């Protein structure tokens, strides 16, 4: 057997072969529907705001505020991290990320 530890480069290649990959299809599927669902909830809130006569820019702001409030609420209930583990990249929604980082900073203190 060739020596996998001969150089850092050969060792890195060997480790890549040895390490199991994340279940990418399952992760992408979950990211898709959870992310899509969150956007759809945002869309319904947006439509409701427009229905009530708000302008587009204000409606967008209301969507952000409501989604952030829900995110903070779920973080406080310790549910948020379970969703994150389940559907990783749905995180890349909105200010969720921003909000969470701020929550944590408060937690750290």
């Amino acid at each position, binding site marked *: 057997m060739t020596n996998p530890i001969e150089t850092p480069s050969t060792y890195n290649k060997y480790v890549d072969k040895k390490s199991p*990959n*994340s279940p*990418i299809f399952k*992760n*992408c599927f979950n*990211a*898709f*529907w*959870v*992310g*899509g*669902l*969150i*956007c*759809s909830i*945002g*869309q*319904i809130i*947006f*439509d*409701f705001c427009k*229905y009530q006569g708000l302008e587009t820019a204000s409606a*967008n*702001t*209301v*969507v*952000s*505020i409501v*989604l*952030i*409030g829900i*995110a*903070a*609420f779920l*973080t*406080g*209930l*310790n549910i948020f*991290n*379970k969703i994150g*583990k389940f*559907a*990783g*990249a*749905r*995180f*890349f*929604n*909105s*200010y969720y*990320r*921003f*909000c*969470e980082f*701020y*929550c944590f*900073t*408060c*937690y750290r*203190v």
Partner: protein
Amino acid sequence: MEFLQSIDWMQLLRCFVVGGLICIFGQILIDKTKLTPARILVVFVTLGVVLGGLGIYKYIIDFAGCGATVPLTGFGANLAKGAIEEVQNSGLLGAFVGGVKASAGGIAAAVFFGYLASLISKPKMKKQ
């Protein structure tokens, strides 16, 4: 009920699909690259700023509504849009003021709710 009838269901579907696709892009970055979540966040926002600044992102917003504005790329595009509008109104200083002004509601909400949550809840162990 009237509100439910007024919803454009095709728009909702487009929103669902585009939002989901943007999240799939993020998931691929998590699984296939060594980028940390913080770096991916920066990539998304920067991408949104660039696409927003070039005027491309507004077509995606027109197509998918909240499917484009809710993800972080939407935040970036909003920053770009705000900066451009403010420059048109108040000159060069607007470049610094405009972005934050456009997203002020969301940022304030993040600060407020984050602070509230930290006062009310206690840090907890995660189960997995």
